[in-house]
């Protein structure tokens, strides 16, 4: 009798343990897809805390063509933009410029030590989506430094990533002992995250993108602070052993970005760093890369081939769907885009080559934001196969229709991974009765490796994506974009 | 000479319909060296008579003189003095203080009068006299009833009162012990004190010089 009771007890305990294990496995084992269609991060009561909330369903947008029943899937692809993987400890950083206002805004962000982790978490979410192609629409790194590019590429490739620059551990403006009240110090300031910086400098794993990925050149890949062409002087600042603490009050930074020429910067640096400095552990890998070098490494990493100095190329997203990447980054300085006449001609030829296939065009700067881009749009206007022109750079979600005689297409920009809401974008092209529907929705990154902390900090940032409205409206996020076309396949 | 002289003693308990006249114009005289037994049924007022004579209670009417003091005229302090110097009391239930030894019980009242040390000597002499030497250091609950009552007698006598009032002193004792106690009381009377004994014990009545009967609140010989 007693034996039976003991046996029964053991069996029951085992059953409970199994049930618990199963329950734990059920919640933790299921990878989050990150799709905001089912759930996303919201702050309904406005207290600054993000929680998982209801997802946002697709909104039908029929400005260009009436809604139609979506049919066969033609392609599934994704876009990530403006990851700004940054060596935040670099002496080439000028975080104090933040307080001077335009054009050098966003030179400091509370979450900047976690850019690599956010990119890795994005990779994880996109892998769960399982796209046929992933396009990085520029500003993959922040400050044109070699070590930034190495880090970003190794995250996309997969493996263990070492985010640390300079000496081991954190050595930057967010240290607890920095008295400057304008920087968020995770060890002491709210929301407190003691040890965050140490943790941020530790190697972390990245799964690597499982899909083929395609790089688009941004201004931050090439330019010092995304604005200034690197020179021997700026590069020696980056690899140097002194960091500028604040700008000498006598130094005047021009408010017009066109005045911010390499010459001016060289002049500023001619007498050494213009202001009080502090020692910093030097790091040779911080050298600033020449534009050709950046393009070469991006081509190699994305396996897009070619040898031209400009990163213009076309590729198959899926059978019957072409992608065209335009390199609008200026090599001479300035954040605005530029497309030369040769590039416009090349684009025209590529559209012809695409024939009856659907086309999606990718650039860093939105094509409607600069003269060369507008000329490119004029070319696209004539092509009935163009579904969308997709860009980044603005750090802001937006979807607007572009009407044209050939049926029009959609201009899509996507927010930055570095700023709130730290989302990437998924696209699904579907056949409809009279054309196509491009379904698009935002994808939240997983919370892996401190990326969740980064999202929290990005949300709180009073100079960040939240107050600037970077998430856009619902119409700018999850939508079904209809296009009618004469093209029949 | 009369140590106790009562005329027309009246005492009533209760009021109205519950009123009960316990003593109704009782007269009594007791002289020094005399042992008088008051006999009567239970509740006939024997104890009340003793209490009045001992200054424990006041009569409603009548005159009462004890050892030369008119009790009906005494103040509270006067009563205390009377009890202290002129009257000794023993009770059916002995009423020794349980926390004190026999000797301490006997010596306690000597603290009430001047000359405590001579009192102590008297206490020891009395204990010897009453044959309690051997047990003088014991606590009451370890003593026999007879022994306890003898200590009580010693305590009552230690301040050399003129009158000893004994309320059923043998009521709680076996025959042997009762005899011893009565013998001692007889000796006390023989020593010149007045002894007034409330009892319905035949033996007590026999040993007394005279017996008065309390009946219907009146005393008769």
């Amino acid at each position, binding site marked *: 009798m007693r034996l039976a009771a003991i046996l029964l007890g053991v069996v029951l305990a085992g059953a409970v343990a199994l049930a618990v294990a199963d329950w734990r496995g059920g919640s933790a084992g299921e990878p989050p897809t990150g799709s905001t269609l089912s759930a996303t991060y919201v702050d309904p009561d406005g207290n600054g*805390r993000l929680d998982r909330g209801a997802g946002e369903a697709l909104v039908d947008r029929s400005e260009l063509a009436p809604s139609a029943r979506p049919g066969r899937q033609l392609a599934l692809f994704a876009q990530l933009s403006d990851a700004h993987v940054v060596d935040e400890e670099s002496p080439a950083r000028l975080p104090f410029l933040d307080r001077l206002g335009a054009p050098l805004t966003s030179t400091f962000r509370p979450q900047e030590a976690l850019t690599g982790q956010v990119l890795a978490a994005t990779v994880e979410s996109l892998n769960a989506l399982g796209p046929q192609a992933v396009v990085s629409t520029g500003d993959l790194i922040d400050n044109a430094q070699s070590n930034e590019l190495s880090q970003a590429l190794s995250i996309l490739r997969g493996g263990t990533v070492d985010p640390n620059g300079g000496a081991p551990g954190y050595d930057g403006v967010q240290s607890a002992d920095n008295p400057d009240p304008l920087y968020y110090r995770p060890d002491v300031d709210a929301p407190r995250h003691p040890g965050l910086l140490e943790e941020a400098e530790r190697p972390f794993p990245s799964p690597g993108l499982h899909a083929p990925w395609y790089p688009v050149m941004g201004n931050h890949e090439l330019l010092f602070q995304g604005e200034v062409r690197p020179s021997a002087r700026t590069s020696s600042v980056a690899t140097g052993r002194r960091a500028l603490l604040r700008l000498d009050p006598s130094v005047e930074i021009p408010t017009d970005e066109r005045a911010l020429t390499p010459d001016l910067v060289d002049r500023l640096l001619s007498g050494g760093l213009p202001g009080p400095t502090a020692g910093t552990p030097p790091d040779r890998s911080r050298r600033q890369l020449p534009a050709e070098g950046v393009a070469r490494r991006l081509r190699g990493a994305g396996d897009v081939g070619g040898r031209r100095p400009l990163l213009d190329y076309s590729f198959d997203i899926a059978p019957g769907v072409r992608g065209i990447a335009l390199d609008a980054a200026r090599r001479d300085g300035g954040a605005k885009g530029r497309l030369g006449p040769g590039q416009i001609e090349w684009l025209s030829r590529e559209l012809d080559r695409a024939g009856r296939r659907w086309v999606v065009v990718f650039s860093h700067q939105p094509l409607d934001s600069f003269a060369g881009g507008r000329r490119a749009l004029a070319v696209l206007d004539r092509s009935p196969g163009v579904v969308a022109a997709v860009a980044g750079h603005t750090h802001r979600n937006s979807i607007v229709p572009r009407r044209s005689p050939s049926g029009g297409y959609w201009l899509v920009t996507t927010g930055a991974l570095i700023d709130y809401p730290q989302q990437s974008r998924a696209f699904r092209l579907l056949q409809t009765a009279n054309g196509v529907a491009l379904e698009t929705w935002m994808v939240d990154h997983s919370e892996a490796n401190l990326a969740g902390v980064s999202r929290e900090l990005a949300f709180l*940032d009073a100079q960040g994506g939240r107050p600037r409205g970077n998430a856009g409206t619902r119409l700018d996020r999850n939508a079904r974009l209809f296009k009618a076309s004469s093209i029949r396949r | 000479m009369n140590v106790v002289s009562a005329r027309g003693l009246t005492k009533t308990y209760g009021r109205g319909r519950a009123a009960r006249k316990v003593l109704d114009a009782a007269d009594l005289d007791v002289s020094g060296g005399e042992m008088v037994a008051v006999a009567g049924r239970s509740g006939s007022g024997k104890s009340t008579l003793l209490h009045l004579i001992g200054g*424990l209670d006041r009569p409603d009417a009548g005159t009462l003189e004890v050892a030369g003091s008119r009790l009906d005229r005494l103040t509270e302090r006067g009563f205390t003095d*009377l009890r202290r110097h002129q009257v000794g009391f023993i009770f059916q239930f002995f009423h020794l203080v349980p926390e004190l030894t026999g000797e301490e019980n006997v010596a306690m009242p000597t603290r009430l009068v001047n000359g405590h040390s001579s009192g102590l000597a008297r206490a020891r002499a009395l204990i010897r006299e009453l044959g309690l030497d051997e047990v003088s250091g014991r606590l*009451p609950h370890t003593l026999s009833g007879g022994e306890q009552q003898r200590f009580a007698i010693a305590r009552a006598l230690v301040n050399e009162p003129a009158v000893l009032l004994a309320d059923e002193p043998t009521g709680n004792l076996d025959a042997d012990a009762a005899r011893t106690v009565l013998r001692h009381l007889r000796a006390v009377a023989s020593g010149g004190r007045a002894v007034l004994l409330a009892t319905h014990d035949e033996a007590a009545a026999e040993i007394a010089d005279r017996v008065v009967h309390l009946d219907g609140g009146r005393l008769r010989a």
Partner: protein
Amino acid sequence: MIASARGAWSRLRGRRGRSLLAAAGIAAVAAMMGTATTVAYGLATGFDRAAERADLPDLIARFEPEQVDEVDARVEALPNVASRSYRQEATEVPLASAGQATSSGAVHVVGDGRRGYAIVAGDDLSGAGDEVVVERGLADAWGLAPGDRLSVAGVDARIVGVAVAPDNVAFPLASAPRVYVASQGLGAQLGADPGLTNMALIWSQDPSRLDTTLVQARAVSFGIDNLRFLTRAGVQVQLDEAAGIVIALLIAFSAAALGVAGVTLGATARAEVQRRLETIGVMRGLGFSRIGVAAQYGLEAVIVAVPAGALGLGVGALLAYGPSARLLESLNELPPGAALLAPLAGCLLVIVGLVALATMWPAWRAASRRPAEILRGAELTARPRRLPYPAGFFGLGARLVAARVGRTAATVSVLAVSTALVLLMLALATRLDALQNDPASLGKRYQLTVNGAPDSTLPVVRDVPGVAAAAPRYEASAADSFQLGETFKLIAFPGDHTEYESPPVTEGRRVQTAGEAEIGAGLANALGARRGSTIAAQLGSGREVRFRVVGIVAALGNEGRVAYVRPTRLLEGDPGLTPAIAVRLSPGADPAQVTSELRSRGIDTAAVGAATSSSREFLGVLADVLRVVAIVNILIALFILTQSLALTALERRPTLAVLRAGGAGRREVALVLAGGATLVVALAAPAGVVLERAVLGPAVADMAVDYVTLPLSADVGQITFAVLGLLLLALTAALWVARQVGRTPIAVALREE
């Protein structure tokens, strides 16, 4: 149930005198609790209540005048902001009303949006031309009411309302009386530019996450000059600076009052049951169950305790309500009003519950004995022992009492607790007096301060006879840059500050170099700082200075939010800081004489108080209250002693009667009782002293304030006072009970047998 209640009622009426006595005891204890509860509850919740009523913002930012649009763009971007509004504050504005005038008025020009004050009389500003709302402190001090006229900077204005805003203490405790005007109304007449602001009021969505809002506010504060943040919590600290210790002590006191109440009520109820053992025997004999007996007694106790408790609580609350409301008004806080009923009701429940339990428990226990045994009385149940007490009546009394070991132990423990509480109250009162008058209690070792340039004044001061030492003393208010809500004081002396201020070091060591700080435990707690931490102080100049914490000190001043440093860095951060000169007198020197000596040399002095002037009166009142409570406590001790003796006398009626029959007078009976009482006191007094010094004192000191160790151990004088007092009480109780015993005819007492 009704029948048994009626039975209980008639039994109570049957012994009306004793029931009334018990009721009086309960009422007295309830009154004590009522007083303590009213004051403590009012003070503890006053700020929150006022803040709630006034819709006090969670964050107030003050700065040099800026464009509203410019500021609002930044405020709008902050996380966790529910709403915001802006004011323009003008200070040093002349205000005048019939016969009253000041030149230091503060005019707050308010715009649209939430106001952040509560209108307690009249109406809010409607925006009409000549409207003004005045703060309650000003209205009270000047006798102003809605409808009256007030001259604001020479402009005749009509008072439409009276407001309370607990973001500062009230005028005249605050030197500047505040008035509010609408920007489109009187503000425009006064020439205020509606496009400018120097004060932002921010309400958060979630006040518990205000720290994140603050960090972001700091991050976007560039270009805004002389920015000062004041959080709601910071406001409370400021307001409570005066009342903080007092509130804590009052709460401790309430706990003590509850303790007294418990032991007293328990003892009384127990005594009552003992007294009526016989009835219990009869009830048991009649077939009542144990539970029935206990329930009967409980019911009787409740019938007495409910009205008595309610009455006592009511009286106590009414007595304390007025003064505590005035105190709250001076702090710009609101009295609790009807909200007080809840804690008072709680007190009543506690009192009634205690009485019922304390009655039912002994009744339950007594009922467990055989009815015959109970009926036979108590004297025979105890087995007497030889005890080494002196002979004689005094010694006899001790023996009588000691014979009842259980009851004596209970009485002794109750009395010991009571003694300990009396000692605690006396120690508290003394401590409060010291806080009030003696700078040394705040660790200050200098007695005078002198204003003047150190270079010229110091040599003169040092030459004055009676001056032992003098040194410049720098004091600066600072906000912690890490946690902007926390404000504290930086205090610096060149060289060894312990010569002038020497709060005891509880951890670490004293400051030795320029970069080090000793911080008060209050600051350490607020910042979570420990030895080795860095504190960053934002000075009035806007600059930040940093110090490494080398020691934690038990400082009482400013709620322990102080840091002792060397002046070097402090002056680097704020070169404009001017010191006062601290003067330490030689032992035995007369401060008055030194003061007049200094005055004859043209130097003005100020005596160093301990508490701030605003709280001094308050502390004085509280010390008096505590003394009264101590006296009440003493009376309660007398009550306990008397109860215990009366019970002994009751039980030992035969013994006492025999003594009386043998000629013992009232004096001797009193002597017997005094002997018993003295035994109890002799046991209770040392136990009480030990209890106070070892348990209650330290416990209350811990409970009262976490930022400092208040020495609350009774001193020799207080102990002597308490012990002598107890002996006196013993004598009084003995005489009282002896009188009662003397009133019972001996014959009656004897007949009981």
